[in-house]
C-alpha cells in the first residue's frame, strides 16, 4: 500500500473515531436526560456550543491553561444545570405527558440561547479556535495526527468509560437505571426519584458540555455547530433507543465511521445525510431503536 493510500485509510479511521466519540458523548448526555425525566432536550446543541464557547473564553480571552479552562467550564455547567433545574425543569416533574412540555420548553431555550450567543460571541468573530491541549504532532506510520486531537480522543474515551462504569456499578447508576425502567417501582423500592431526576439533568448536561469542550480542542468551530449537533444527537438517541446509554455509545461510533467512510468513497455532501437515511431505514424495522429497553 502506498503512503498516500495509507494516509487516506488512517485519516478515515481517525476521523471516524474522533467524530464518533464526540457524537457518543453528546448523545449519551441527551439520552440520560430523556431516559430519566422524559425531556427531549432540543437545546442540547446550544449547551454543546456553550461548552465550546466558554472554553474559548477561558483559554483565549482569560488566558487560562487549556486543562484548567476545561475543568472550569465543567464546573460552570454544573452550576448552570442546577440553576436551570431549580428555576424551570423541576416544575414539570409531575405534569402528565411532560415530554411535550419539555420539548416546547427546550425549543424556547434554544431560541433564547441562539439569540444571546449571537449578540455576544457573534460580534467578536465568525470563527473560534482554542489553543491546543497538547502541542505537536504524532506520526502513526506516515500519517501525522495532531496531539491535541489525540488528547481529546483519549479524554473522550476515558469519560465514556467512567460514565459507563458509573451507570453500571455505582449506587446512583443503579438508581438511575431503576428510574429508567420503572419509576413507580423504583420509588416503592426507596429510590428518591426527584433526586435522581436532578442528578440526571446535571450529569446529562455535564456530558453534553464535555462533548462541546472536546470538540473545541479537536476542531475549529462557529455558532452553526449547535444545529448540526442537535440533529445528530437526537438521531443517535432515536436509533440507539431512547434512554439507552449503550445505544448512544455504539450508534455514535457507527455515525462517526459512516460519515468518514461515505465521505471518502462518495462525497462529504452525501455523508452528511447518509446516517439520517440509515436512521429512517432502521426505524422502519425497529421503531423503538436498536438498544431499546
Amino acid at each position: 500500500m502506498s503512503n498516500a493510500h495509507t494516509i487516506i485509510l488512517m485519516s478515515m479511521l481517525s476521523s471516524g473515531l474522533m467524530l464518533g466519540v464526540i457524537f457518543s458523548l453528546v448523545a449519551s448526555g441527551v439520552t440520560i436526560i430523556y431516559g430519566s425525566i422524559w425531556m427531549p432536550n432540543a437545546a442540547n446543541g446550544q449547551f454543546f456550543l456553550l461548552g465550546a464557547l466558554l472554553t474559548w473564553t477561558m483559554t483565549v480571552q482569560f488566558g487560562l491553561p487549556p486543562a484548567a479552562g476545561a475543568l472550569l467550564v465543567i464546573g460552570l455547567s454544573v452550576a448552570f444545570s442546577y440553576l436551570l433545574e431549580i428555576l424551570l425543569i423541576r416544575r414539570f416533574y409531575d405534569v402528565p405527558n411532560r415530554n411535550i412540555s419539555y420539548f416546547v420548553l427546550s425549543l424556547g431555550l434554544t431560541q433564547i440561547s441562539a439569540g444571546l450567543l449571537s449578540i455576544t460571541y457573534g460580534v467578536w468573530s465568525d470563527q473560534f479556535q482554542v489553543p491546543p491541549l497538547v502541542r505537536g504532532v504524532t506520526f502513526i506510520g506516515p500519517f501525522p495526527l495532531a496531539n491535541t486531537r489525540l488528547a481529546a480522543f483519549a479524554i473522550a474515551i476515558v469519560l465514556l468509560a467512567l460514565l459507563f462504569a458509573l451507570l453500571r456499578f455505582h449506587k446512583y447508576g443503579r438508581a438511575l437505571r431503576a428510574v429508567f425502567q420503572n419509576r413507580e417501582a423504583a420509588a416503592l423500592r426507596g429510590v428518591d426519584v426527584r433526586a435522581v431526576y436532578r442528578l440526571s439533568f446535571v450529569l446529562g448536561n455535564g456530558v453534553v458540555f464535555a462533548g462541546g469542550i472536546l470538540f473545541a480542542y479537536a476542531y475549529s468551530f462557529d455558532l452553526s455547530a449547535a444545529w448540526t449537533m442537535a440533529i445528530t444527537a437526537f438521531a443517535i438517541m432515536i436509533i440507539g433507543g431512547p434512554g439507552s446509554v449503550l445505544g448512544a455509545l455504539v450508534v455514535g461510533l457507527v455515525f462517526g465511521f459512516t460519515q468518514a467512510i461515505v465521505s471518502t468513497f462518495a462525497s462529504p455532501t452525501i455523508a452528511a445525510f447518509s446516517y439520517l437515511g440509515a436512521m429512517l431505514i432502521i426505524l422502519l424495522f425497529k421503531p423503538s431503536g436498536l438498544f431499546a429497553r
Partner: protein
Amino acid sequence: MHAERRGLPIALAALILGAGIAAARAEEPIKIGFTTEQTGAWSFFGASCVAGLKLALPQVNAAGKRPIDFVILDNQTQPAQAAAGSRNLDVQSKVLALSGPTSSDTSLAVYGYAEQNKVPFVVPVAAFPQLTKPGSRYTFRLEPDAAGWGYAIAKFVESRKPGAKLALIYSDYALMRAITAGLKYQAPKSGLKIETDIAFPQGANDATVQAAQVVAAAPDYVIVIGAGGFDMTITNQLLDLGIKTDQIIHPFGITTQVKNWGKRSAGSFYGTFFDSNLANLTPEGKKFVADFTAQNNRPPSYIENYCYVTAQIIRQVLDANPAAADDREKFRDAMSKLNTKESTSGIPIVFDKNGARKEYIFFMQIKDVDEKGYQASQVFYTEWDPEVIPVYELVK
C-alpha cells in the same frame, strides 16, 4: 387701501413661513435605511459593517451639511426579515435609499424589494453575481462579484506558476459556489488543471479524509474556502498533513480569519479588497486603519472599509446633486453617474449599466501573525471588467 394694508402682512407672513418650511426641510435629515445582520449567523459581518459606517459619520455629517441619518435595522441574517425590514424602511421611515446587508442571501431579498419598488439600493458587502444581473436599475454594488474572484484567482496562480495543478476544497455555500464557478471557467483558459474538487455540505466539521485526498493528488496550490470555523479546520488539517503554507490560497481573508489562521499560516496567500497592510493606502486610509484599530482592538478589513466608503459616496452624491436628497430617481441617476475613488485606497468607483463596479482584487502573503495583529505584503493586484467572463451565465 385697507385691503392693501392687510395684504402686506399676510404676504410677509407667507414668505416667512415658506422660507421657514424650506429651511426646516433643508435641516431635516436624509434617511438611508441600513438593514444589516446584527444577530444570526452573519452577525459578526453586520457588526463589523456598522463599526465601519460609524467611523464615517462625523465626516459625513460635518457642520453645515444636511445631515444623513442611517436608520439601522437588524435583519437577523434572515432574507424574509431583510425584505420585511426594507418595506418598513421604505413605507414607515420613508428612506431615500436602502443599504446595509453584508450577506448575499439577505442582499438578494433587499434587491428584490428595491428593484420592484424603485428604491435605490447601495450594496456594501455581498458578492453573489445576480445582485447586478442585467436589467438591474436601482442597485449599486461596491464589492466585486464572487465569480470574478474565481477569475482573479486563476490569473494569480497563472502569474506564479504557469500550468499549475490545483485542488479545490470548499464549503458548499452560494458564495463559494460562485467563486469556484469563476475559477473553473477561467482555469483551463489560464492553462491550469483542477486535479481535485471537494465540496462540503453546510455544517461539516471534519476534513481529515479530504485533506488526505488533497495531499494524495499532489497539487501545486490548494484553494481553501471554508465557511466560518470550518475554514480553520480545513486549513489546519491540510497543514497537519504536510501541505506547505505557500501552497495555500484563501480567496478572501478578513482580519479575524488571518489572526485565527495564526503564525503557522505565515507564507500562505489570501485575496482581499482592502487590508491594513496595503502599501498604497491614502492618508485617509491610514487614519481609518488607526482610528478603527484604536476603537475595536483589531485592524479593519474590506467589510469595514466598504461600509465606511458607502456612507462617503452617498454623501458625495448628495453634495453634488442636492435635488437628489428628496428624489429617489434623481439619486439613482446620480449614483449611476458616480465617478470617484475610494477615499481609503484610491481605487476607482464607477458603476456599469447593471450597477457593478470595475472590479479588482489584491492578493496578500502572510508574513507573521502575533497577539496584536498580523503582517502581510501585497504580492499581486489585478482589475477586470465585471463581464470579462460570463458571470451572469455561470451563476444563476
